[in-house]
């Protein structure tokens, strides 16, 4: 792995971590306009996968999408502004935390209907295949353990398999869907093995280890680009925070469990590895962290100083063109 790539991974994981922490702080200060779902703890998953992607590749995301956005290269200023409902936000303040998208970066949008974004990534892969030689793009569908209970995820995998589409199904198994543990809701303890049902490869990966994720993703991406069809990756990870900003996970998770995972924190492990293997030194890592701190402060300032969308925005973007007024009858 190039040093540049290593640096990118550290930067990305740390940016996600600090973005979530900063975003939460702002949420508690009442600066976010709605519910937010932090992904701190899961940084290695989007980072290790998106490390293989370009802006021409497409990803589908979830309600817990900040990490996917950042790993796919979205601007944290525009993200923070969106969460604060500002006109300068990624979606002009009309989408919010659960709908951050950037089509110029191949980010198909966070989605607040569990499972609903999975077929979108399949569709993006369909486009890539349709373009043939012109395109080597692939699609990646991020979804959680809870989403595996949605029929549309099953349908999407079957479609991708029979059509040999260049798509990766990235199941972020953080072991909880809201308060519900996967052992209760999911009828298998090996989600990756469900790949057999579709005749595609399935791999279970330590989602707390960015190098392991990077390795597994490398193969899946290579298969997809080579036209060899989809892969299912199950990434075993953990969210440090509650389900959403105001949720206290202690009510349904044993603390030893959380500690166990914090022990294996993806960022700390990365630091240990790169330092022990002398790929990067403490100064370099520190430099990255400082840069990110500044970026976060700037993102918050940018957002707080940004204007709210004008009222007319309520009525725009419903259609490209529409001959009836969309204003409410008043």
């Amino acid at each position, binding site marked *: 792995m190039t040093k540049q790539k290593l640096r990118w991974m550290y930067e990305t994981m740390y940016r996600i971590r600090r973005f979530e922490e900063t975003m939460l702080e702002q949420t508690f200060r009442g600066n*976010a*306009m*709605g*519910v937010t779902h932090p992904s701190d703890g899961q940084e290695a998953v989007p980072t290790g996968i998106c490390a293989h992607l370009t802006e021409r590749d497409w990803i589908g995301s979830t309600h817990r999408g900040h990490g996917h956005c950042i790993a796919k290269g979205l601007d944290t200023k525009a993200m923070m502004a969106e969460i604060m*409902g*500002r006109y300068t936000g990624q*979606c002009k*303040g*009309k*989408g*919010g935390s*659960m*709908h951050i998208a950037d089509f110029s970066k191949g980010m198909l949008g966070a*989605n*607040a*209907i*569990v*499972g609903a974004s999975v077929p979108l990534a399949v569709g993006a892969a369909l486009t890539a295949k349709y373009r043939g030689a012109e395109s080597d793009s692939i699609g990646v569908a991020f979804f959680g353990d*809870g*989403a595996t*209970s*949605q*029929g549309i995820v099953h349908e999407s995998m079957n479609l991708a398999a029979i059509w040999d589409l260049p798509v990766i199904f990235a199941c972020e198994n953080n072991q*909880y*869907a*809201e*308060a*519900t*543990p996967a*052992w*209760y*809701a*999911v009828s298998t303890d090996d989600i990756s093995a469900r790949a057999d049902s579709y005749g595609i490869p399935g791999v279970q990966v330590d989602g707390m280890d960015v190098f392991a994720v990077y390795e597994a993703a490398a193969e899946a991406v290579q298969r997809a680009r080579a036209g060899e069809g989809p892969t299912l990756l199950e990434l075993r990870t953990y969210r440090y925070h509650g389900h959403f900003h105001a*949720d206290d996970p202690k*009510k*349904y998770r*044993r603390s030893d*469990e959380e500690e166990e995972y914090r022990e294996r924190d993806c960022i700390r492990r990365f630091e240990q590895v790169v330092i022990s293997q002398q790929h990067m030194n403490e100064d370099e890592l520190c430099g990255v962290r400082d840069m990110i701190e500044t970026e976060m402060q700037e993102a918050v300032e940018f957002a707080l100083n940004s204007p*709210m*969308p004008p*009222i007319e*925005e*309520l*009525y725009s973007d*419903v259609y490209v063109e529409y001959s*009836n*007024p*969309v*204003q*409410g*009858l*008043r």
Partner: protein
Amino acid sequence: MTITQAIDPKHLLNDLEVPQIGPGYDVPGSVVRYRDAFNQTLRDELNRDPDVFIMGEDISGGFDRETKEPLDAWGGPFAATKGLVQDFGPERIRDAPISEAGFVGAAVGAALTGLRPVVDLMYFDFVTVAYDQLLSNAAKSRYMFGGQTKVPLTLFARSGGGTGHAAQHSESFYSMLAHIPGLKVAVPSDPYTVRGLLAAAIRDDDPVFLVNDKKLINMEGFAPEEPFVLPLGKGRYLRHGEDVTLIGMSYTSVVCKQAADALHEEGISAEVVDMLSLSPFDEDIILESVSKTNRVVIVDEDTPRASMASEFAAIIADKAFDYLDAPVKRVTGPHTPVPYNKGLETAFMPQPDDVVGTVKRMLGIE
């Protein structure tokens, strides 16, 4: 003492904030939050009928890794099922995976075979995921099988804007459900009516969808202590007036009440009709009021096209035509998804001022 007979809410002048005396109110009761009245009613019905059970995501709030016991960590979505699993157990408070189509279908199957399932769909928007089971199985089974069966199924979920949940968690499209033959739709507007209508829904032998507007859930109001039912399909007056009829449903009944209060300040006497049910709905109370005031404004947070506001306007334009002194007006949400930004979201939702303005223009004032 239990109120056995159904109370006809039409004769109630129930102020939304404070307790009232009047028919149906000569019973012990107190001022409670909507959410607590809801929770209490679920508890009452579970106690009343052993065939009643509840199904939904996180309604028992997680399970302990070692003991496998339910934890009720959340009290269920919007605290609707708080404390129930402890008393009724996981078979009757059945926590479900994220499979709305599957467990609504399973609920229909359970209803067809003798149980009385109550499904918590969490956010109203998620009904689209289970839409086929609702429309093709729950609503049609009795008819297409020639009346040999029934589907005593109750569903509920939270609708409406106001909490910054954005486009996919703020829908109010109950008009689509009211459109469906075979399905019933109830839209309570306060603790008193949700208590009576939820009980009615659960005891009803047809599939009933009860819609809870998020903006009502923490509101307080009077509710009788004892279980009782309000008849499905009956509206009520929230205020009597002479100059114009304001028709509300779910939270817009509160909006109409507030608009009527404001209009009163300006010497305009508005009558407020709270529909309470959308299918069946109370055609009589609409016609009774409109034929008296000769003017009507229908207020609905749902988007306007082919909405319940449209339906009530159509009924009035047909059956109260000769009584109308002015065009039938609708005050609704715009034909747009619900935006995230608070200012835009507030502008999306019909406000008392919008109603006041419409009434004044109708009366040629200012």
